[in-house]
């Protein structure tokens, strides 16, 4: 039983990371209707920036993290204004190719600037291990779960109770009418990209301590985040979080059960293909996800 709880807890912790990147995907998809294939690489870049600030410039962790969030936010806005806006309204293929191009550029840049050898980025919460009734949980895992829940709360408050949140929602739902009532739509979309980039930065900072920092660190996480977003409903922030946590627990459960003979074909190599399977099954059975509304297409 404690083994079981142990797996649930560590599943929740990894799920929380998937959820934070999934939130970034959802915010961008909601506001601009784009799926950002470069989201994982943007997060990796942010983690590298924090690492460089700490190790090369001697900054403290929290100042470096804060600076990284601000830089990522600005970077996200700039990305939208410069690269995405010109192709946003065109064919789907153009947008996809542009975000793939961005993925290649950022991945190449990280390799070019910092080299391929893995780097160590510490956890802000330390590595103390708590023993709660036989279940071990690290401070980093607790911190990760708390941060992600905090983010969801903040996002909910932002979208629900602030004027900017209202404008953001208006710009996403009906850009033309939002413009008529004085919402500066293009800036709202850019703001969405900025928010997503900052969320991605948090995901990167939370991922780096559990694996080592390397240029393709976030590629599997991006697939988990896709699966989480699709599972929860790709337009629903709450869905992204629930989807992320569910996916984290599900994948850990399968590994756990495989140790006990059930699902013994499930090995570590099958985690990413497992996430792929989740994506395919959800898209085929219930494309809107758990929390999404089915899309209605007008002809």
């Amino acid at each position, binding site marked *: 039983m404690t083994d079981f709880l142990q797996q649930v807890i560590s599943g929740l912790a990894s799920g929380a990371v998937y959820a934070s990147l999934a939130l970034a995907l959802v915010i961008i998809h909601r506001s601009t209707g784009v*799926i950002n294939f470069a989201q994982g690489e943007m997060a990796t870049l942010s983690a590298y920036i924090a690492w460089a600030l700490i190790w090369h410039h001697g900054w403290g962790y929290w100042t470096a993290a804060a600076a990284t969030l601000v830089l990522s936010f600005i970077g996200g806005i700039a990305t939208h204004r410069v*690269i995405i806006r010109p192709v946003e309204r065109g064919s789907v293929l153009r947008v996809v190719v542009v975000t793939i191009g961005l*993925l290649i550029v950022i*991945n*190449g840049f990280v390799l*070019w600037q910092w080299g391929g050898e893995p780097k160590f980025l510490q956890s802000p919460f330390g590595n103390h291990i708590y023993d709660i009734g036989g279940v071990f949980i690290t401070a980093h895992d607790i911190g990760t779960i708390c941060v992600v829940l905090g983010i969801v709360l903040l996002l909910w408050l932002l979208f629900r109770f602030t004027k900017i949140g209202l404008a953001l929602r208006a710009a996403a739902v009906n850009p033309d009418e939002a413009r008529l009532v004085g919402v500066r739509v293009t800036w709202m979309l850019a703001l969405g990209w900025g928010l997503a980039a900052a969320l991605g930065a948090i995901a990167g900072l939370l991922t780096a301590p559990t694996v080592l920092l390397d240029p393709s660190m976030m590629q599997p996480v991006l697939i988990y985040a*896709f699966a989480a977003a699709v599972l929860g409903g790709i337009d629903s922030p709450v869905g992204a979080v629930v989807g992320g946590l569910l996916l984290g627990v599900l994948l850990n459960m399968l590994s756990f059960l495989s140790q006990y003979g059930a699902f013994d074909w499930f090995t570590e190599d*099958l*985690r990413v293909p497992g996430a792929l399977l989740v*994506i395919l099954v959800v898209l085929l059975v219930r494309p809107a996800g758990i929390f999404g509304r089915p899309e209605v297409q007008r002809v």
Partner: protein
Amino acid sequence: MTPRQKLVIGFAAFAAFTAFVLVLPAFVNEFKTREYAYVAIYLLALVGLNILTGYTGQISLGHGAFMAIGAYTTAILMVGNEQFGGPIGGGIKDVWTLPLAALVTGVFGYAFGFPALRLSGLYLALATFAIAVAIPSTIRRFEHWTGGGQGITLAGSPELTGEDGVEFLGLTFTPNQWMYYLSWTLALVGLAVAWFLLRGRTGRALRAVRDSETAATSSGVSLPRYKTFAFGVSAAFAGIAGGLLALAASGVSPDSFSIVLSIYLLVGIVIGGLGGLSGLVFGAIVIAFLPTTWSQGEDLGSLLPDRIIEETQKPGGSAIVFGVILILLMFVLPNGVAGIFRRVGQAIASRRYSRSSSS
């Protein structure tokens, strides 16, 4: 230009290109011919991908996965997988595995076409992207079939043609030349097949699906039929290309089919021009040479200032150049390099037309 003139010019260009391909090995270093074989291999894969993405509008970011299926089919049929504990004995001559690679991959593609029917636009891109990321670890997992992370090596296999030269029609080819001619023959045949397939009724139906699914359906084009068809044909092309890739590299391993391969293929059709065939040769040349040429520090002349070349030759530098080119192309040239020629051609044609009509 009348359609007939266009056809004649097209045939002439194809014949000239075939002749060029035929005599090229006489003028280059024998060792280089194997590198040029890769151009043909990528060309085949690009033709396949363009049938699906450029003509039918179904975005695939996971075509490397289809190439992997083809490559592993060829490798397993040649040397078998009994050595890893798998069920297949192998022992098929390499050339004969290629049609089987096409068939197997084509069936996979056709089968994937059915779930893909329910995925449109971005969602299809997302699902295929996930496939591309998932393929190497899937290959590693089923090691009884695929040899796991080590992969399968073909060097020294009795089924590999031409390890010590090939006699064919009274001519002697070195192994590299053999690979070159085999790949280019298949690539040129593939181009011709694709052209025949796309010019008539089928091609029109596929383009109709791309331009508007609603309009296509209302004019009697069956979406399921043509989409699954496009997936099948496209995958079959990728399968042959994958099989050739296994032969050219004398082996397969999971890491050669990472997401990078799928992205290169996408770059290739974007550079070559979506929904065109002739430009794909440029795309294939670029993806076969740019990454290696650039990073191996071959002489690029005084094209760019030394400092820039030096910087971009560090690891990752070629990727940056690649990505920037890709993004810029989407901004200024959505029709690829072939689009420039087409535009210039149209400009000349319209000038001639207006001059003759005004006189």
